[in-house]
């Protein structure tokens, strides 16, 4: 228990140091956040322009699609913000920095999670979109729904982290494989920003049960909207547990294989 508290305290200390570091150049930091949000805005522009031409996309209206997109973007942004370093793990291995990490008396995944800082813009944009959907009364703003949003965000972030840990741990076996896997993950997450029912059944099944990206935006949004896919949300905790176990096991096996980078 004491150890967990230590980890939590350390996490916040290291995070705030990271923010302080970035605030060294305030103008640069503000520009960075702003433009990060702007680049992700292109998805919204896409939906906006598309829905000025059509009334609905397979039963999904503009506001409903924005809710889905916002939920996905918020989880994605929060993951990037909290756990940025998992993204370039291939590089951490190649450069030999991992040796330094293994030397310290703390968990290796934990130390990786504390490095870097990214995607505040995504968090802002995602938050704004979900609030926008709520203001436009796409879903009833009840206490249950708000708690549900919080819960599904927590689960989504955990799923994202598991995906990244799994992709990153392939670097232990194969040089540079994590880069390729990250690309596959990115492609899947490009698909998952849209209502899954526009895709073929096979893709929908894969994105639900194999690479469960559907649980990050589509199913939580469906629950909030109360449409025909709302009950899938019940499988979310199970998925999280399965992927957590998988990620921990694969990572531990990988670290055992690690032999340093040779300097």
């Amino acid at each position, binding site marked *: 228990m004491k150890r967990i508290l230590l980890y939590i305290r350390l996490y916040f200390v290291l995070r705030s140091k990271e923010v302080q570091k970035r605030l060294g150049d305030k103008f*640069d930091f503000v520009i960075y956040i702003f433009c990060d949000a*702007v680049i992700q805005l292109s998805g919204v522009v*896409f939906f906006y322009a598309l829905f000025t031409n059509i009334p609905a996309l397979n039963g999904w209206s503009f506001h409903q699609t924005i809710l889905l997109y916002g939920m996905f973007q918020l989880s994605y942004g929060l993951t990037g913000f909290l756990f940025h370093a998992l993204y370039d793990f291939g590089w951490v291995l190649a450069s030999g920095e991992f040796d330094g990490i293994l030397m310290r008396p703390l968990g290796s995944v934990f130390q990786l999670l504390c490095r870097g800082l990214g995607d505040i813009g995504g968090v802002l944009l995602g938050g704004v979109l979900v609030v926008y959907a709520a203001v436009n009364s796409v879903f009833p703003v009840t206490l249950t729904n708000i708690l549900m949003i919080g819960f599904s965000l927590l689960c989504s972030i955990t799923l994202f982290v598991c995906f990244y840990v799994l992709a990153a741990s392939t670097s232990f076996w194969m040089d540079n494989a994590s880069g390729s896997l990250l*690309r596959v993950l990115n492609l899947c997450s490009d698909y998952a920003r849209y209502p899954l029912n526009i*895709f073929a059944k096979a893709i929908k099944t894969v994105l639900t049960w194999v690479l469960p990206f559907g649980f990050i935006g589509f199913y939580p949004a469906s629950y909030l909207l109360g449409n025909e896919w709302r009950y899938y949300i019940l499988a979310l905790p199970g998925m999280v547990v399965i992927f957590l176990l998988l990620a921990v096991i694969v990572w531990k096996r990988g670290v055992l294989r690690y032999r340093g980078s040779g300097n």
Partner: protein
Amino acid sequence: MTALSKYSAYVRLSILTGIAFRWQVVWGFVTGLFIMAFHIFLWNSVYAHTAEVGGMTLNQILNYFLLVQTVSTVTSTRIDREISRGITRGEILNRLIRPSNLYMQSIFSHIGSVAWNLLLSGVPVFILSLFLIQVAFPGSFLLFMIFIYSVLLGLLISYNINFLAGITAAWVRGSEGITHAKDFLMMVCAGSILPLSFYPPVLQHIFSWMPFRYVISVPITIYLGKTADIDLIRILATGSIWLLALCLVNVFLCEKACRRITVFGG
């Protein structure tokens, strides 16, 4: 003649780099197929109840996005990041000490990587798409040649816009922000996320005054035969003027930046 052989070395060098990182290109190809499949699903849903959206039929829009893929393998570049990173980290020094101009060096290495990308990612995606959708071909050989010209124009305009975004790093600390803002404009105003005819008329009018549409939208509308003959000459002429203007600005700024840059220990 010596100048030509000097710069052809950069083309060769970038092709060799391409060969060294060949998996990148393979991934570009796989990504291209995924994106094509995505568009087929998405637009089939969109067109489920209508025959025409934004003045385009289902087949036209699928062809549009196939061409976005093909054209953007030629016109997309990472020169902005290379230059801004080079300036902020000081690596640019290695390029400045070479006996040739920074602007020209970059353009010739860009041409090498374009050839490589087109051959290994653009063309295969196009060929495989022949089995997925009903691919359209330009109406005449002349139109095809005009299309090729417009793609080359797009390549050079895109290169210059990116160079401009990159070179600002010599003056602005937050150049990463500028790069992102430029990426956003490129995606929206060039027509790579949606055909420009999908946007409200006001935006369409604004976009037509920007140089971005020459990178994606103009070549594709020419290819699909959606540009009237009279407009063709006007559009290509305006594009050439844009290119000339951007070129002049860049050569000037490149000169200025090279004087301004101070690298640690240099």
